[in-house]
């Protein structure tokens, strides 16, 4: 896929930039404004996780399709400390920082597909998709 955008996530300013990029793609996909808001919020949570827990990383934002479905693909990747217990991190209300602990589980609720891979000391990759209905 050539129309992927790599957005480096290093500071809080990049969180806003990632959100903008996602909104552009959602508009291109003709997502409803409600869906756009949902996806932009999910991206905001994922980008913030990178800044807060890993310090820096990147987001890859692009189009994806599956048979006749079109959608948006977002990969949030960092080489931070990793998540020691993913099951625990996916629990509503669990947080190791002063966050609300709803970033990851909230993201999973919002998106159609959600995948997380993490290894202690080797970083975390979260892959999410939302299909155009």
């Amino acid at each position: 896929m050539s129309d992927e955008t790599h957005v480096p996530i290093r500071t809080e300013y990049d969180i806003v930039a990632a959100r903008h990029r996602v909104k552009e793609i959602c508009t291109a996909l003709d997502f409803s404004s409600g869906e756009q808001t949902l996806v932009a919020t999910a991206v905001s949570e994922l980008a913030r996780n990178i800044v807060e827990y890993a310090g820096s990383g990147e987001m890859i934002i692009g189009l994806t399709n599956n048979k006749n479905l079109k959608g948006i693909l977002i990969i949030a990747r960092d080489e931070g400390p990793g998540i020691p217990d993913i099951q625990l991190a996916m629990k509503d209300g669990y947080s190791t920082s002063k966050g609300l602990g709803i970033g990851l589980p909230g993201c999973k609720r919002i998106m159609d597909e959600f995948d997380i891979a993490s290894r202690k000391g080797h970083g975390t990759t979260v892959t999410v998709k939302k299909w155009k209905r």
Partner: protein
Amino acid sequence: MSIPILKQGPYLIASIQSAPTDSEWREMGKLLAERVGKQRSRGVVVDVTVLDVIDSFAARTLREIAQTVKLRGAEPVVVGIQPDVAFSMVQLGLTLGEVPTELDLEEGLATLDAILKGGEINV
């Protein structure tokens, strides 16, 4: 770019112009806490009409700002949460807790008037 804070009678109005960065959020909270004292404000309206995303950080910050304002002796109210934003907050499980919310600035000011009038009766 910082968030403008306007004074209107006994109230302060923090009028968010575009998606604030984390530090702009924090700065707004600090400024409001100071200005409530300087201008002896009785109420603070935080207008989020332009925000197209309220994520967990923004929600937490709004709660913290409201709490701080309240501790300083003024009544906080958040106004202008857009329909899509409200829907998305519910999906994500975000709440503003005890912070009062109103449809728009006009309703927010009316609510503050009502709260303060109510307070006078109790005095």
